[in-house]
């Protein structure tokens, strides 16, 4: 560990520094609570480098996934340092030099990495200010910074960051003794910032992992079955395939099969020819898709009460309600199938991947291919949006397996569209049941909620969880599958947002975690919150409708959280302004609300839609979202995430379900897994609330649940039909 003493040693010509030695008061030190990301990576130099040429490099452990995290972190860094935004460079995540921030998930990047970047940049500014004050012989309090240059009492000095860093090494453990800027003085954070990654993408510059072209790079494809448990039967001799143009290698390890060729089109053709020769063992029949909710209820499960509250004085229920809801398996369905590049040189391996966690991936690949973790370097490169744990890690692992058979030359593995649908872990099918009892005053006094679901967390989280990789089950010596786990409350996994934010005096919330799912499952944006919020908010609406209560008033009746109430009241006034109140024949307005994870952003969504009386076709017309995500870094970025969340959730809610039959997944392309198109999206308005003093909360997943409920509630208002099974298809509406 580098100490303060080392830091001083790193200074040349720093005579005056002695006056500014940091005073390490024990109590002051203890009072500094490091942001969690910083506690794990305490060295200043692992986060930040100020270069003499006027550039500030920020290393973060969070990956750019198209969510704009690099831009938000650059705003935070520029704000604390008081330098121009354009001076900031956010480095891509690379296990060779980045801080380890595990996965980029859970809508936590602004909160976690943002807090760390804020602290380290404040520290750098503080250290440099002290140094400048010493050199100038003035009190540090008189100095201010303008684009990296020091002003003394508002007058220019000869000193700036760029010259000072020639004489000092900004290294060592971050002390936290320099306060971060008062948010009241922010002039960059909170303002809309132009995303850094957009210009290269819109002009066709090198922007994505797909655009990497390494010398001598070979192209690979994999061949996979419809059911991940199937075993491969393939002739030993594959002379005809090996003789196809450009074929370099056919890689076979147990049931893992891949082909490597000089040209990409040659790899595609060889993979098709190989697939035609393969037969796959029958692993047993999958359950009936149409009754997957019943199957879940009967499956072996870990049952746990995750929240309980009782108040015997709360009064007796005079009116009772009960409903149940279903969500199918749904796909991440990234617009690009997964891709990775792996390059083995002797016993060392470099892997480029668009997965969400380079450090966990490195550990998992090490265990899969039998190399030491220290001999593997994983580097993030941007892919298409992933929305959770899709095929990215698996493609990286596949590429690594293939590269173990190819010495000295990089191998680029592109999954096909079908590979992604057959290989990716889906968002779990879920079923929920709710019972509520109301007193004479129309208040819910008893609430019982049960959720049955597979896991939402089967990431290859390091070497111990390498068995979660798709190929780990296929290779000749399969790796053990880690036990099924679930993120505990208060975040929750399958039970995320299963505990209502409403204040019900008596409630029992139970999760039934199904251990063995018929299809592979893991985290999809919002995890269980999508189905749990859909269920709770549909049910609240059903009760409000039955009581002839206003749906917003009925919710507020059960809320004590002032920010939640403010968001719903704002939604109400926005709906009034937009004349989104009236329900007309064939047109309906519905709302949905949640505080994501009960810890993150508050989001209320109103949706207006029409239902064609003859065709029963649902057309989304207009959406309004009101969001309180605490302190706002980039309002444009937040609006973008919420708009995108609403549209993606609308697509899940109206259209999406993974098709599967007795023998495996049948959704293989966009025809068998349709998503919402340009002619089907609503107009969207996003309104942001920012209560003073509230810390930043992520918004990436906040709209998923509220949007689903808003749509179902609007359909119920427009047609009188309550659809409780997702997706809300035309056939369900006709049958309902």
């Amino acid at each position, binding site marked *: 560990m580098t100490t303060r003493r080392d830091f001083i040693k790193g200074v040349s010509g720093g005579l005056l520094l002695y006056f500014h030695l940091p005073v390490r008061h024990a109590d002051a030190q203890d009072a500094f609570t490091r942001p969690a990301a910083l506690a794990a990576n305490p060295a200043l130099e692992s986060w930040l480098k100020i270069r003499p040429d006027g550039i500030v490099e920020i290393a973060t452990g969070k990956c750019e*996934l*198209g*969510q*704009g995290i690099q831009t938000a972190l650059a705003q935070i860094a520029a704000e604390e340092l008081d330098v121009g935004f354009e001076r900031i460079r956010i480095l891509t995540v690379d296990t060779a030099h980045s801080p380890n921030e595990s996965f980029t998930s859970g809508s936590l990047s602004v909160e976690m990495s943002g807090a760390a970047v804020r602290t380290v940049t404040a520290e750098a500014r503080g250290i440099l200010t002290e140094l400048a004050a010493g050199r100038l012989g003035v009190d540090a309090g008189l100095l201010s910074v303008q684009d990296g240059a020091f002003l003394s009492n508002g007058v220019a000095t000869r000193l700036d960051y760029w010259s000072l860093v020639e004489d000092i090494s900004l290294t060592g453990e971050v002390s936290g003794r320099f306060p971060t800027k008062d948010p009241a003085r922010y002039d960059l954070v909170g303002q*809309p910032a*132009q*995303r850094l*990654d*957009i*210009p290269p*993408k*819109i*002009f*066709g*510059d*090198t*922007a*994505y992992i*797909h*655009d990497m*072209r390494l010398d001598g790079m070979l192209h690979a494809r994999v061949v996979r079955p419809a059911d991940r448990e199937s075993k491969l039967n393939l002739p030993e001799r594959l002379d005809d395939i090996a003789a196809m143009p450009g074929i370099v290698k056919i890689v076979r390890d147990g049931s893992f099969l891949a082909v490597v060729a000089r*040209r*990409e*089109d040659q790899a*595609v053709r060889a993979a098709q020819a190989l697939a035609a020769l393969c037969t796959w063992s029958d692993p047993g029949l999958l359950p009936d898709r149409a009754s997957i909710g019943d199957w879940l209820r009967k499956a072996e499960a870990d049952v746990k009460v995750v929240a309980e509250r009782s108040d015997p004085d709360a009064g007796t229920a005079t009116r009772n309600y009960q409903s149940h809801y279903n969500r199918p398996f749904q796909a991440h*369905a*990234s*617009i*690009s*199938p997964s891709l990775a590049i792996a390059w083995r040189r002797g016993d060392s391996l470099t892997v480029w991947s668009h997965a969400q966690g380079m450090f966990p991936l490195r550990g998992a690949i090490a265990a899969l291919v039998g190399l030491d973790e220290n001999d593997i370097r994983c580097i993030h490169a*941007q*892919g*298409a*949006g992933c*929305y959770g744990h899709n095929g990215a890690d698996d493609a990286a692992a596949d590429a690594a397996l293939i590269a173990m058979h190819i010495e000295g030359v990089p191998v680029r593995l*592109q999954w*096909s*569209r079908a590979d992604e649908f057959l290989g990716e872990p889906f968002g779990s099918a879920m079923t929920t049941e709710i019972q509520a009892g109301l007193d004479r005053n129309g208040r819910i006094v008893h609430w019982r909620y049960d959720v049955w679901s597979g896991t939402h967390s089967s990431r290859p989280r390091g070497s111990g969880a390498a068995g979660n990789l798709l190929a780990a089950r296929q290779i000749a010596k399969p790796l053990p599958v880690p036990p099924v786990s679930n993120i505990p409350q208060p975040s929750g996994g399958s039970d995320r947002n299963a505990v209502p934010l409403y204040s019900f005096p008596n409630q029992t919330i139970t999760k039934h975690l199904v251990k063995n799912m018929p299809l592979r499952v893991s985290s999809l944006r919002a995890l269980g919150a999508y189905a749990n919020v859909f269920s709770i908010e549909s049910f609240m609406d059903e009760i409000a409708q039955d009581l002839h209560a206003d749906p917003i008033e009925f919710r507020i009746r059960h809320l004590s959280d002032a920010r939640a109430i403010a968001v719903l009241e704002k939604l109400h006034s926005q709906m009034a302004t937009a004349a989104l109140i009236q329900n007309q024949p064939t047109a309906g307005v519905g709302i949905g609300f949640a505080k994501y994870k009960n810890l993150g952003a508050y989001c209320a969504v109103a949706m207006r839609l029409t239902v064609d009386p003859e065709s029963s076709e649902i057309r989304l017309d207009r959406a309004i979202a009101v969001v309180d995500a605490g302190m706002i870094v980039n309002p*444009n970025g937040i609006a*973008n*995430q919420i*708009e*995108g*969340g*609403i*549209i*993606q959730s609308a*697509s899940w809610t109206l259209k999406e379900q993974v098709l599967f039959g007795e023998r495996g997944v049948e959704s293989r*392309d*966009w*025809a068998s897994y349709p*998503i*919402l*198109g*340009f*002619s089907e*999206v*609503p*107009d*969207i308005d996003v309104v942001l609330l920012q209560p003073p003093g509230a810390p930043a909360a992520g918004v990436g997943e906040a709209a998923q649940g509220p949007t689903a409920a808003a749509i179902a509630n609007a359909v119920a208002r427009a047609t009188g039909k309550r659809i409780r099974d997702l997706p809300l298809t035309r056939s369900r509406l006709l049958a309902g």
Partner: protein
Amino acid sequence: MTVRFTLNNADVQLDVPGDTPLLYALRNDLGLNGPKFGCGLAQCGACTILVDGKAVQSCVLPLSGVDGRRVTTLEGLGTADKPHPLQRAVIELQAMQCGYCVSGIVMSAAALLADNPRPSDKEIRDALDRNLCRCGSHVRILRAVREAAAQATSGDPK
């Protein structure tokens, strides 16, 4: 087989099998990044380019199909110094999240605006319906296309 065509206003010739999908030839032989691989099935539009000004999905078009024709990709539409109105509008309105689909969408929109400089909202949506976006950037992209149309027809780009 030698295939000759005009790519982004330059003559090119390629000596690779004529049945090679054009997308692979553009990306791997000619080093372009604009057209993207999304499905290889002409379902998602990520690979959309212009052939003689018409929006075409390059993943299913054989290379031989563009022999003697005029091919335009995102790179040929405009540059950072001289952006096409659609590129400028996408930047101004921050009309993407991951952006992977946007190249193909911009090409579809460019073909539309070339044919129909003042499209209605429905005409824009219909023209883009062959392009899929998974991040849900539709509303911003529609706004960007309307903005680009307005700028192009006013003849007075900002």
